[in-house]
């Protein structure tokens, strides 16, 4: 496959991720839609190009919820949707579990999660939960309490290095969670312990629950702050799939790598502009709003290229 071929494929995946998340947001009359707009290219580039994962012969079904981990109840892990590992394979850790639907959509686009399971999203008893835990497709850890994903990923990275494994630990962070003290604790520890096998993409969509990130707590200059802690840092347009992929194949080093991705929470969905500044969770407050979104979805579906396959 030539360079352009993979770019086309990844862009199609990104389009599909947005469309799928919009469909579920319409169906449930609410959802984490702006996260899909901001991170669609990141997820598509990860699953379509960057991550080294075991192939799956066929998309896997998401099982029903069968209990939380505990005595007599072994943990069922979403890692199987990522191929289940292997010493040369990457982990993919999603830190903000609020992005779960984006992850499910990416898995469906990547042929890792079957279509019928997508229909069980946010249905009682399903593992395809609104804010997933480690039994949910693609979720390798339980990270919904923001700030803990990077620490867990660092522990995994340390252990994998000890075991001599060559696979990386690839982590996706949201910008808001980088306000936590634990994030900075983890950053200093990952640099101090030279976790060069940790690759972090940060979706800088500038939105959080209370509104624009800059009005809640300032993070900037974020790239400079990361650098000053000792990390290797690149700052890119988070919708540029070539740049995303390039950063995913940097030569290994002895410090963690952070790809700070500037993104637009309304990307390819201008209809969301009207929701500003509250983009964290989209809910339709009127029938008119919902109709407009439905119309947008219909147009989006019609514009789907044949290569995207049927859904």
């Amino acid at each position: 496959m030539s360079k352009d071929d993979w770019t086309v494929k990844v862009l199609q995946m990104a389009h599909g991720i947005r469309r799928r998340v919009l469909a579920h947001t319409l169906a449930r009359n609410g959802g984490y839609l702006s996260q899909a707009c901001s991170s669609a290219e990141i997820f598509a580039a990860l699953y379509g190009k960057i991550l080294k994962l075991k192939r799956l012969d066929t998309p896997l079904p998401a099982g029903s919820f069968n209990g939380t981990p505990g005595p007599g109840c072994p943990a069922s892990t979403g890692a199987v949707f990522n191929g289940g590992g292997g010493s040369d394979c990457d982990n993919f850790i999603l830190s903000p579990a609020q992005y779960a639907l984006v992850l499910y959509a990416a898995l469906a686009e990547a042929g890792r999660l079957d279509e019928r399971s997508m229909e069980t999203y946010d249905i009682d008893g399903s593992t395809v939960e609104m804010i997933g835990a480690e039994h949910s497709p693609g979720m390798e850890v339980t990270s919904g309490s923001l700030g803990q994903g990077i620490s867990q990923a660092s522990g995994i990275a340390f252990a994998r290095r000890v075991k001599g494994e060559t696979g990386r630990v690839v982590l996706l962070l949201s910008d808001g969670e980088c306000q936590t003290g634990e994030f900075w604790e983890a950053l200093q520890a990952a640099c101090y312990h030279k976790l060069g096998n940790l690759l972090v993409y940060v979706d800088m969509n500038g939105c959080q629950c209370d509104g624009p990130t800059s009005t809640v707590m300032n993070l900037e200059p974020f790239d400079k702050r990361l650098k000053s802690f000792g990390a290797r840092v690149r700052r890119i347009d988070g919708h540029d799939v070539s740049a995303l992929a390039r950063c995913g194949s940097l030569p290994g080093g002895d410090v963690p790598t952070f790809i700070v991705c500037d993104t637009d929470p309304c990307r390819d969905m201008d209809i969301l502009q009207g929701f500003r500044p509250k983009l964290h969770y989209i809910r339709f407050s009127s029938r008119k709003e919902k109709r407009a979104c439905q119309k947008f979805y219909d147009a989006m579906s019609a514009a789907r290229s044949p290569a995207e396959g049927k859904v």
Partner: protein
Amino acid sequence: METMTKVHARHLVEWGKHHPDAYVLSADLTASCEADGFRGAYPERFLSMGIAEQNMLAFAGGMAREGLVPLVHTFAVFIYRRALDQVAMSVAYPNLPVKMFGFLPGILTPGGATHQAIEDTAVMRALPNMTVIEPGDATETETALDVAWETPGPVYVRQLRGEVPVLFDRDEPMKLGCPRGIFCDLRGGGPDFVLISSGICTEEGMRASAVLREKGVSIFHYHVSTLKPFDCPEIIDAIASSRRGAITFENHSIVGGLGSAVAECMAEAGLSKPLRRLGIRDTFMHGASRRYLAHEYGLDAMALVSAVEKATGEDFSIREENFRETCTPAMHSDAKAEAL
């Protein structure tokens, strides 16, 4: 009174030889938590995490997922207070084998309220998947590590350090879920009281009950080192057979610890016997010596005597000098890295 010093420190080094998957994580309290010997012996298996406990606990969860066994060492308060969310979500929820050694339970530090873990058992006991153990002497301080290792999932240890009395035979190590019957002479029928103690209160309980027995009060005495899971039918049977009910005695708040565990079991068994809970009476404490705090907050042998006197309405005229000697480690000594 036979005592031993730096029991955990020594055992950890010896034990570490045979457990290559065990890693010690520390948050700038390495010598204070008796992990300095391990650091010296196995530097590649020692991780300094800085004063950053939230990251340390979730990092430990990540390590455990990959087959390593992290032994987290710091003061107890910094595990269950500062990093509770991380303990809950990165360790307990996934049921990972992270073994947490929390030092300075209750009155064992002059460091004041910031350092005194008075509700750790209550908090950790409430977490699903968590096992909670508390050594009461040198034998248990040593073997708590083995119990923690052999118990699947996360384990929280209210660990002792420095100079510790030897109360139990070296050949009788701590066993998960097995209370020790220190004194339970079943030949004479039920006792007046059943004393259930944990941690350092067991020694005080032994001192007091020996003198009380001389005064004609019959007391069965059980030492509990597994605070969760807590399922002790033998103790419940003993309480059922008693004339005046149960007394619990712990170096912890009377809310949520041993006293509460016993109360829950008694209530579920339908026992209508009085229960008297001795411990820290729902209050924060301040910084002072162990002996002072024990007296001030009612955790010494005399506190137990007073409770029995109150329950029986008798005055036994027992004075401090009637008790056998006790282990009173010096606040400033070579047995600890610092007085804290």
